[in-house]
């Protein structure tokens, strides 16, 4: 059987050179997203804004939106939004936070029930009072920061601080862009969105870590390969995996998006954007190239100069000037460096496996 190869073997794309485009592009997009967040805003759902959400279904035929709208307008409950949801018989009703504290929210629900009567079935009623919504918002925000912090600490222990920092930049970049996406699309921002954000965080890091793992391995093996090339080889050799994994995750998400129903629609749409579009891009074009600027090369083992002149040593500005931390000596870094002359283009494909066991 002929097997599918999405990515051909031995690709040699110069991803790192692309950073001269990807860095400004990302900076621009991030600024745009931040601008959107502040001027266009997020569409906060009742979890964070408080208020009432009711999903009703007409017991027979289609729901008469106009009729419902006039009936509810007579109640003077402030801002009332009606929206077709799923099928033509289903309507989502949103009431803003009612003045008069927790009790007033419950009274509003009773009023709506009276006004709509028995013609509809109440499929879902959610009431979130002002105090709870405030707490949920702060919990959500704290949660995201804790997740970032926790992951950073883990990466710091497992890799070196430059990697953790690079991952964090990538992380924040992902979150900012996703928030921008949510602002543009005005997707409901609620507790499930926090779940989506954290999952995006996890996935994107998952990706980043896979490439970082390879970079670390390469750093141990090829002590003299110039940083940009080393990064390129690392990204290229994990490229096939990145693509295949994203295809499978996209397939899962696609199924959820198409068949999972309205209730998790915004969740999957956000994930689709964050994981598939942003996450992959970030780990290849942001998280890896940024290592050049963070001075990973400074930590490379002995073996004389880090790189010869032709290897674009200029790309490693901080490297020589500031050996930031003593390198945690790699426990299994194998034989000393590969022959210096060959370390350039050809050595990448030569099997110089670490001895194991």
């Amino acid at each position, binding site marked *: 059987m002929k097997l599918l190869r999405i990515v051909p073997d031995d690709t040699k794309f110069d991803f790192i050179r692309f950073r001269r485009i990807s860095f400004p592009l990302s900076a621009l997009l991030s600024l745009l997203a931040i601008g959107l967040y502040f001027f266009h805003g997020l569409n906060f759902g009742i979890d964070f804004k408080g208020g009432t959400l009711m999903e009703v279904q007409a017991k027979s035929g289609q729901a008469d939106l106009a009729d419902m709208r006039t009936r509810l307008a007579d109640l003077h409950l402030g801002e009332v939004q009606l929206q077709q949801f799923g099928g033509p018989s289903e309507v989502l009703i949103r009431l803003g936070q009612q003045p008069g504290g927790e009790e007033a929210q419950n009274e509003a629900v009773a009023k709506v029930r009276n006004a709509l009567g028995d013609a509809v079935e109440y499929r879902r009623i959610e009431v979130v009072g002002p105090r709870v919504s405030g707490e949920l918002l702060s919990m959500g925000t704290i949660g995201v920061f*804790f997740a970032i912090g926790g992951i950073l600490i883990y990466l710091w222990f497992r890799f070196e601080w430059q990697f953790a920092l690079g991952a964090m930049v990538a992380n924040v970049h992902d979150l900012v862009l996703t928030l921008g996406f949510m602002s543009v699309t005005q997707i409901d921002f609620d*507790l499930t969105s926090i779940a989506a954000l*954290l999952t995006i965080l996890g996935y994107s890091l998952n990706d980043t870590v896979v490439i970082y793992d390879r970079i670390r391995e390469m750093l141990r093996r090829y002590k003299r390969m110039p940083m940009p090339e080393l990064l390129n080889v690392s990204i290229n050799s994990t490229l*096939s995996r990145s693509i295949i994994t994203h295809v*499978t995750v996209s397939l899962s*998400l696609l199924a959820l998006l198409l068949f999972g129903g309205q209730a998790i629609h915004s969740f999957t749409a956000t994930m689709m954007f964050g994981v598939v579009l942003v996450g992959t891009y970030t780990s290849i074009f942001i998280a890896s190239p940024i290592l050049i600027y963070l001075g990973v090369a400074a930590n490379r083992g002995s073996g004389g100069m880090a790189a010869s002149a032709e290897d674009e040593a200029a790309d490693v500005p901080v490297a020589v000037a500031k050996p930031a931390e003593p390198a945690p000596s790699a426990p299994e870094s194998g034989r000393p460096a590969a022959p210096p002359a060959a370390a350039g283009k050809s050595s990448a494909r030569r099997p110089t496996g670490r001895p194991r066991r």
Partner: protein
Amino acid sequence: MLYFSRWKAIGTVLTAVIVCLFMVPNFFPEATVKTWPEWAQRHLVLGLDLQGGSHILLEVDVNDVKKQRLDALLDDVRRTLRDAKAGYQGLARRGDSVEVRIRENADFPAVFAKLRELSTPLGGLAGGTGQRSLDVSDQGNRLVRLTVTSAALNERIRQVVEQSIPIIEKRINGLGLVEPTIQRQGADRILVQVPGLGDPKRLLDLLQSTAKLEFRLVDMSTSAQDALQGRTPADSEVLYEGKGGTRTPVLVEKQVLVSGAELTDAQAGFDQRTGEPIVSFRFNSAGARKFAEVTQRNVGRPFAIVLDNGPPNGPEVLSAPVIREPILGGSGQISGNFTVQSANDLAILLRAGALPAKLTPIEQRVVGAGLGQDSIDKGKIASYAGGALVVIFMLVTYGLFGLFANIAVMINVAMIFGVLSLLNATLTLPGIAGIVLTVGIAVDANVLIYERIREEVRHGRSAIAAIDAGFSRALATILDSNITTFIAAAVLFFIGTGPVRGFAVTLGIGIITTLFTAFTLTRLIVATWVRMVRPKTVPI
């Protein structure tokens, strides 16, 4: 990496099989599972969003607790002053304090000392910290201010939560609902989760009623109309009987003769003469004795049955019948414009007892059973579709090894359900999404291994050496990359509630089972294949 000792192989397979077996009870009807031994009964619980139900977060009304404390304090101060036979004036609540002015300078030191004795050291959790229940201060000019300390208030709120939980449980059981979850949350909150309820409004009303029942005498010294005009006797108050348009004022004495706390039973029924719904009740022996005494002394006078459901309505007179003869048997009945349902609800409330303070719902999420079923159906379709797409893709990409991966992923999903069942975990719609995503992660583990093998082959290794190296190198990466996702899932578990927490649980468990399958099962499958086939080339 490819060598497995016999025992290790057996252990691996056994673990997987046992974990998978735990999902078996989910395929049988509940009645069948009930007959199995206890350890085999563990099964998945559907979340409220899937089976329909109510999630209600109640908060103790701090103002109600404060008001109760201050009312009680007011009574205590009045009694103390009366016992000390001291003249006083202006005894009243002011904000969060009670203030009183002692008339005579000569009385002041002794009375002040007496009032200070009202402040007691706090017991319970706050005990031992030297906190006291009251701040009693001399404001000068013989004015004494008594303030309830915040420690005392918090302690009282804690008690209210503790006392309320069993009462709420009884009330919900009274409605005939199964398996409610009632938990304390934070210092002043109670989370009530009730699966599958037809009428969420009724549940809410039942939870919000404090249901303090009191038997008091009607004050006949003046008419209720006169009292409304401002001539209310000091020991009486005007309450209303009936609801809506036909509210009639009744002048009721403040003194409580017998309270609902002394009821042992209450049942809804019908009046034998009129056929109206009524609630019949029975007192305990102390209550019965008191009630007999009171009715003996007051034949011919009306008494009022007062129900206090807390703010905003306050106490209401249910009915005010005239005592025709002494009631010695300790039982009676309340009739008062009940419908069958309201009589039933009152009986439930009286049986369960009064809540110590008002509870306000601050968050409620109700899902109808219809929506729940829809979500289950959609979740199923999405899972099957997602699963099928991934399985096909893996076959097309990796052929035989894709098949291995698919087997591993299926076992992985079965193990997730097994672990979820073992933990009696709750499956929510986002939880299903979590499982679908786990399929993605689980496949990724295989992809990492296989891509590494492909690479090693390209680097010129022999088939077996390439497979071996592929596994050993990829596993480190799998561990690193999954731990980061696991950290995100853990955070989500701690901050999330309900459905979101369900997502975190399945994602977290999925990562653990993925690590297990990648590190052992997939390796075992491939190792077995290598031993049997002795491949010269790797078919990927």
